[in-house]
C-alpha cells in the first residue's frame, strides 16, 4: 500500500510544484527568484530521491511497484485504467530520467539566473518531468500516449521559450508539426491494436498476451506505425529535421529534453513493445537500417556544423541511430544501456556548451569562440571527458555501451550495419574533437571568464561535475563478461533480447580495432584543426555543409506545395467564392428589408388599412372555403 503512495508522490510532486510556480508567476510580478528555485528543486528533487529508491528496490529485490489511481473509461467490457507501474524497464528509465532531470534543474537555476521569465521556465520544466514520468510509468499505451504528447507540448513551449524572436517560434512550430507526423503513426498503431485485440483489455500485459491472435501482415503494419512514432520523437531519418532547429531553446532545455530524456522516448517505446518487435523481424531490420543511416548521416553532417549546440544536436541524432541499430537487431537491453550512458555524457556536453554560451554572452559559433581554454578551464576538462566518452575511449562509460552495440551488430551477421556503425563512430570522434580542438586548442581570440565565485555559476558547475563522474563510471553497471562483469542491467531488465554468441578473442579484436581507429581519427583531427585556422577556410558549399539539402528538399516537396495550396484556398475559395456568396446574400436581404420598411411608416392610418386588407382577404378565403364545402 505504502509503495503505491510512493509512486503517486513521485508523479505528483513535479506537477504540484509546476502548478504552484504557475500560480506565483501569474499572481505576483515581483516574487523572489529564490522562491521559484526552492519550489522547482523540491519538486524535481523529491521525485529524484523516490525514483532512486524505487529503482534500488526493483534492482535488488525485484519489487514491482503498482499504483492504481482511477478508472478512466469504462464502456461495457472495455476499461482504461489509470495505473502506474514501475516494472524493471520503468524503474530503469526512472533511474536516469529523474536524477538527470534534477541535476539539470539545478544547472538551469544558474543558467536562467536573472531571466525575466524564470518562473515560466520552471513551470514548463517541472511539468516536463511530470509528463516524462507519466510516459515511463504508464501501464497502458493510451496513458503513455498522454505522456508522449505532454512531453511534445512542453518541448514545443520551451523551444519557443524566447518567443519575442520569431525564429524561435518557427523552430517550435517545426518541432511540433514534424512530431505530429510521428504521432499520427503512433495513434494509428494504437487504433489498429485496439481494433484487433482491444476487447481483451489494453494494458501492456493484456496486449502482449494476445499478440498471437493478430495476423502477421497486420502485426507488421502495427509495428511499422509504432516505429513511425518513435522516428518522430527520436529524430531519425526522415523525421529528424526538427531536432537541430530545436536548439533555439535555452541550453538546459536542449540538455534535458532534446538530448537526455524526451528524444529517448522512441527508444523506450520500441523497447517497451519488444514482444511485438521480436515477432516482426522485417520491421526490426528496417529499424536497424533507419538507425544506421541516421547515425551515419547525422555524424557526417555534424562534421561541418559551426554552432556548438547544432553539432551536439546532430550528435544526438547519431547516437539515437546507434540505439535503434541495436534495437533493430534485437539487442534491446544493449540499446537501453547506451541510452542510459548517453543521458549522462550528452547532458554533460550540453551543459558544458551552455556554460561556454553563458560565459561568452550567447556566442555559439565555434569560429568565434576559438582558444578559450584559459578562460574556462573547468569546463574544458569536463568537455574533454565528455568528448572522450562519446568517442567511446576505454574505460569510459560509452565505451562499454557503444562497444556492446558494435559487438552485437558484428555478431548479428549484418556486416553492412556493422560497417555503417563503425564509420559513424569514427565520424563521431572526428566532429567531437574538431569542436574540442577548435574551441580549446587554438590561438585565443577572446578574453572572458566564468566567475566561479558567483552562486549561479556554482550551481552550473556542480551538476556538471556529478555528470562527469557518472559518464566516467556509469559503464560499470553493465560490464560484459570479458571485463569480469556480468551484464547486471541486462539481467535486471529481462527483455526479449536475442542473444548473440561472440568469442572473447573476437571481442578483444573488435574492441582494440575500434579504439585504435578512433584514436587515429582523434590524432587526425588534432593535426587538422588544432592551432591552425582550417575551420575558417571551410567553404559553405557542397553536400555536407548544406545537410545534404534535406531541409531544402522538404521545403520544396512539402512546405511549398502546402503553402501554395493554402494561398489558393485563402485567395480563391475563401475570399472570392465563399465571401462573395455570403456578401451577395446579405446584400439581397438588405434590399428586401428596404422594400418592406416602406410599408412600415409609423402612420396609424396605414396600419388600419393593412388590417382592412388582411380582413378582406381573410373573409374572401372563408367565403371560398364555405362555398367549396356547400
Amino acid at each position, binding site marked *: 500500500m505504502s509503495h503505491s503512495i510512493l509512486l503517486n508522490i513521485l508523479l505528483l510532486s513535479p506537477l504540484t510544484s509546476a502548478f504552484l510556480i504557475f500560480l506565483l508567476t501569474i499572481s505576483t510580478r515581483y516574487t523572489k527568484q529564490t522562491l521559484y528555485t526552492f519550489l522547482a528543486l523540491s519538486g524535481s528533487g523529491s521525485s529524484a530521491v523516490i525514483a532512486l529508491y524505487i529503482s534500488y528496490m526493483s534492482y535488488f529485490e525485484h519489487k514491482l511497484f503498482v499504483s492504481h489511481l482511477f478508472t478512466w473509461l469504462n464502456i461495457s467490457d472495455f476499461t482504461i485504467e489509470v495505473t502506474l507501474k514501475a516494472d524493471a524497464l520503468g524503474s530503469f528509465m526512472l533511474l536516469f530520467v529523474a536524477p538527470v532531470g534534477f541535476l539539470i534543474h539545478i544547472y538551469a537555476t544558474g543558467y536562467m539566473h536573472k531571466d525575466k521569465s524564470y518562473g515560466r521556465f520552471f513551470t514548463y520544466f517541472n511539468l516536463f518531468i511530470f509528463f516524462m514520468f507519466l510516459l515511463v510509468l504508464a501501464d497502458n499505451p493510451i496513458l503513455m500516449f498522454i505522456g508522449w504528447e505532454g512531453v511534445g507540448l512542453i518541448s514545443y513551449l520551451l523551444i519557443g521559450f524566447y518567443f519575442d524572436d520569431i525564429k524561435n517560434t518557427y523552430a517550435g512550430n517545426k518541432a511540433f508539426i514534424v512530431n505530429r507526423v510521428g504521432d499520427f503513426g503512433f495513434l494509428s498503431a494504437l487504433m489498429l491494436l485496439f481494433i484487433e485485440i482491444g476487447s481483451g483489455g489494453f494494458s501492456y500485459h493484456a496486449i502482449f498476451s494476445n499478440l498471437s491472435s493478430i495476423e502477421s501482415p497486420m502485426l507488421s503494419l502495427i509495428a511499422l506505425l509504432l516505429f513511425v512514432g518513435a522516428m518522430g520523437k527520436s529524430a531519425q531519418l526522415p523525421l529528424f529535421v526538427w531536432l537541430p532547429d530545436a536548439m533555439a531553446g535555452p541550453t538546459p532545455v536542449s540538455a534535458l529534453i532534446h538530448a537526455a530524456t524526451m528524444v529517448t522516448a522512441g527508444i523506450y517505446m520500441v523497447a517497451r513493445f519488444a514482444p511485438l518487435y521480436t515477432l516482426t523481424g522485417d520491421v526490426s531490420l528496417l529499424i536497424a537500417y533507419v538507425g544506421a543511416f541516421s547515425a551515419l548521416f547525422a555524424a557526417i553532417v555534424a562534421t561541418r556544423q559551426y554552432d556548438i549546440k547544432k553539432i551536439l544536436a546532430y550528435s544526438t541524432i547519431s547516437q539515437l541511430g546507434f540505439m535503434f541499430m541495436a534495437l533493430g537487431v534485437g539487442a534491446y537491453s544493449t540499446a537501453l544501456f547506451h541510452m542510459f550512458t548517453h543521458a549522462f555524457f550528452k547532458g554533460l556536453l550540453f551543459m558544458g556548451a551552455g556554460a561556454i554560451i553563458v560565459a561568452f554572452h550567447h556566442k555559439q559559433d565555434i569560429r568565434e569562440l576559438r582558444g578559450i581554454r584559459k578562460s574556462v578551464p573547468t569546463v574544458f576538462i569536463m568537455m574533454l571527458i565528455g568528448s572522450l566518452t562519446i568517442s567511446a575511449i576505454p574505460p569510459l562509460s560509452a565505451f562499454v555501451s557503444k562497444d556492446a552495440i558494435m559487438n552485437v551488430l558484428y555478431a548479428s551477421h549484418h556486416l553492412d550495419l556493422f560497417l555503417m556503425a563503425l564509420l559513424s563512430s569514427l565520424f563521431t570522434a572526428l566532429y567531437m574533437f574538431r569542436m574540442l580542438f577548435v574551441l580549446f586548442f587554438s590561438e585565443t581570440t577572446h578574453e572572458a571568464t566564468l566567475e566561479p565565485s558567483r552562486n549561479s555559476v556554482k550551481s552550473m558547475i556542480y551538476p556538471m561535475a556529478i555528470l562527469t563522474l557518472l559518464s566516467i563510471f556509469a559503464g560499470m553497471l553493465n560490464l560484459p563478461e570479458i571485463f569480469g562483469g556480468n551484464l547486471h542491467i541486462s539481467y535486471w531488465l529481462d527483455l526479449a533480447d536475442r542473444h548473440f554468441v561472440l568469442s572473447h578473442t573476437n571481442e578483444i579484436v573488435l574492441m582494440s580495432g575500434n579504439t585504435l581507429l578512433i584514436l587515429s581519427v582523434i590524432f587526425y583531427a588534432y593535426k587538422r584543426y588544432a592551432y591552425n585556422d582550417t575551420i575558417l577556410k571551410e567553404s559553405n558549399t557542397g553536400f555536407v555543409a548544406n545537410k545534404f539539402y534535406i531541409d531544402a528538399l522538404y521545403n520544396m516537396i512539402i512546405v511549398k506545395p502546402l503553402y501554395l495550396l493554402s494561398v489558393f484556398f485563402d485567395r480563391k475559395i475563401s475570399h472570392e467564392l465563399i465571401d462573395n456568396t455570403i456578401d451577395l446574400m446579405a446584400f439581397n436581404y438588405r434590399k428586401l428589408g428596404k422594400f418592406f420598411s*416602406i410599408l412600415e411608416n*409609423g*402612420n396609424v*392610418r*396605414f396600419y*388600419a388599412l393593412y388590417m*382592412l386588407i388582411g380582413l378582406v382577404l381573410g373573409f374572401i378565403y372563408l367565403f371560398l372555403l364555405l362555398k367549396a364545402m356547400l
Partner: protein
Amino acid sequence: MLKAYMILSIILFSIGMVGLISRRNIIVIYMSIELLLNAVNLSLIAISGDLGDSSGHVMSLIIIAIAAAEAALFMSLFVVLFRKKGSLDANIFDILGSKHES
C-alpha cells in the same frame, strides 16, 4: 327586417373604416372609431332582438359604457398630443416608422 338593420350596420361600418383610413385629423379618426363600434352595437342588438336572446343587449350596453370611458381617455390623449406638437394631424405622429431609424 333584420336584413335592413344589417345593411345599415354594414354601411355604418364601411363609412367608419373609410374615415379611419382616409382622414388625417385625429379627432375625426376617433369619431370614425366610434362609428365602427356603434355599427357593431347595432348589429348585435338587431341579431339579439331577432333571436329573442337578451345577451346581445347586455353586450352592447357594456360596449357603450366602455366607449364612454374610452372617450374620456381619448380626450386627454388629444390634449397631450396637441401640447407636444401643436397639431392634431395624424401624419405628424409617425415616430415608430422606418423614417426615424437611426
